[in-house]
C-alpha cells in the first residue's frame, strides 16, 4: 500500500503539488478579510511606504510635468470658481439686506435690478428693470438697503431711469440724526459736502444725516450720508464737512423703488 502511494505521488507529483498550491491560494483568498491577515497588511503597507519613499525622487521625475499641467488647470478652474463665488456672495449679501428692508417696511416698495450704470461727472444715472407696469411713477424715491440713492427721472413700461444723488445739480435738505442739525447736501463732482452747518453746531465724524422735512424732492427721515471729515476754515462761518453715502453707490446691483408718494421707512444700519 505504502509502495503504491509512494509510486502514485512520484508519478503524479506535479499534479499533486499543483492541487495543493491552488488549494493554498484559494485558502489564502478566503481568509483575506480575517483579522489574522491585518498584521501582514500593516507590515506590507509599512514596507511599501518605505520602499516608495526611497523611489519618490523617481516619482517626481516621471510625474512632475503632468502634475504641473494638472495643477495649473485646476488652479485656473478654481480661480474662475472663486471669482464666481465672490460675485454670488456680494449679490447674496445685498439681496438679504434689501429683503430685510422690505420685510420691515409697508408693502409699498418694488425690488428692482440695476441693468445699466451711466457715470458722468455732472450726473450719475442707472437704468432699472421696472417701469410704470410695476407701479413706479416719475419722481419715485429710489433706495438702497441703507439709505437714499436717488429718484426716478424717466419711466417706461418696463424700465426706468434713476438720477442718483451724486449729481452736481441736486441739493438735498438734510438733518443730523443725533441732534437735528440742519444742512444742505450736495455733490461737488468728486465727493459729498454738507454745507451751511453753523460753526456753533455739534457735528462729529460718523454722524448720520437724514433727509429733512424741508426736502421737497425726497421724503423725510431717509439716511443719506455719514460724516467723514470736518474742517473749520478760517474766516468762514460754516464747517467744511465731507461725507460719504450710507449706500455703496458704486456697487449697487439691486434697488428699492417706492410706489407711494408718502412713505415712512425704518432703516437699520448695516455696515
Amino acid at each position, binding site marked *: 500500500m505504502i509502495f503504491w502511494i509512494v509510486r502514485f505521488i512520484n508519478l503524479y*507529483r506535479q499534479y499533486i503539488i499543483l492541487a495543493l498550491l491552488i488549494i493554498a*491560494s484559494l485558502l*489564502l483568498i*478566503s481568509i*483575506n478579510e480575517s483579522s489574522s491577515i491585518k498584521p*501582514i497588511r500593516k507590515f506590507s503597507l509599512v514596507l511599501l511606504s518605505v520602499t516608495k519613499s*526611497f523611489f519618490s525622487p*523617481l516619482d517626481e521625475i516621471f510625474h512632475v510635468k503632468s502634475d504641473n499641467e494638472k495643477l495649473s488647470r485646476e488652479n485656473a478652474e478654481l480661480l474662475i470658481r472663486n471669482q464666481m463665488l465672490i460675485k454670488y456672495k456680494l449679490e447674496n449679501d445685498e439681496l438679504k439686506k434689501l429683503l430685510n428692508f422690505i420685510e420691515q417696511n409697508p408693502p409699498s416698495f418694488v425690488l428692482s435690478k440695476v441693468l445699466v450704470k451711466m457715470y458722468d461727472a455732472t450726473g450719475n444715472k442707472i437704468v432699472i428693470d421696472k417701469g410704470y407696469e410695476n407701479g413706479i411713477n416719475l419722481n419715485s424715491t429710489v433706495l438702497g438697503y441703507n439709505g437714499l440713492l436717488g429718484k426716478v427721472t424717466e419711466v417706461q413700461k418696463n424700465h426706468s431711469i434713476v438720477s442718483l444723488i451724486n449729481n452736481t445739480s441736486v441739493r438735498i435738505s438734510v438733518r443730523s440724526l443725533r441732534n437735528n442739525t440742519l444742512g444742505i447736501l450736495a455733490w461737488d463732482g468728486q465727493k459729498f459736502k454738507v454745507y451751511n452747518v453753523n460753526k456753533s453746531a455739534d457735528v462729529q465724524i460718523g454722524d448720520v444725516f437724514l433727509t429733512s422735512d424741508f426736502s421737497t424732492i425726497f421724503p423725510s427721515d431717509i439716511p443719506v450720508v455719514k460724516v467723514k471729515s470736518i474742517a473749520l476754515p478760517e474766516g468762514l462761518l460754516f464747517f467744511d464737512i465731507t461725507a460719504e453715502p450710507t449706500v455703496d453707490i458704486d456697487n449697487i446691483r439691486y434697488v428699492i423703488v417706492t410706489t407711494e408718494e408718502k412713505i415712512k421707512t425704518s432703516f437699520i444700519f448695516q455696515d
Partner: protein
Amino acid sequence: MYKDILINILLLFFLTIIQVTIIELIAINQIKPDLVLIALIYITLREGQIPGIIYSFFAGVILDILGNGIIGSNSFSKVIVMFVVGYFHDPFSITSFRIDLRFPLIVLISAIVDRILYIFITLSLDFNELINLMIGYGILPAIFTAITSLLTLIFTKRGAIST
C-alpha cells in the same frame, strides 16, 4: 543547486519590489508590464514545471502582500499559468537554456491567461463565502469526480490506460 534557488528567490523578490514601485511610475493608464511573470516563465522554462509552480506560488503571495492586493489571487493565477508553461520546458536544455522567439509568444499567451484568471478570482468575490463554495462546489465534487473516474479502470481493458 542551493545557490540557484537563492538566486531565483532574490531575483523574484527584487523584481516584485520593482513591480510595485518603479513599474507603477511608468504605467500608462494602469497598463504596465509584469516583470515577475516574465521572470517566472523564464525560471519555469529553464528549470521545469514543479520548481516553476512553487516559485510562482511564493512570488504571487509576496506580490499580493507588497502590492496590497488580495493575498492568494496572484499566486492562484500564476501557479496555473506556470503549470501550463511547464509543458514547454525541455529537460535536455537545462545546462544550455537559451531564449528564442518562442519566449515572447509564451509570455504573451501566459500574460493573457494570467490576467483573465486574476480578474476572475478578484472580481465580485465574497471571501467569506469562498471557502464554503470552494469546499462544497469545488474540492468535494472534484474528489468525487476523480473517484468516479476510477471506474474507467474497471470498465476498460487492462493495459488500455497506461501510466
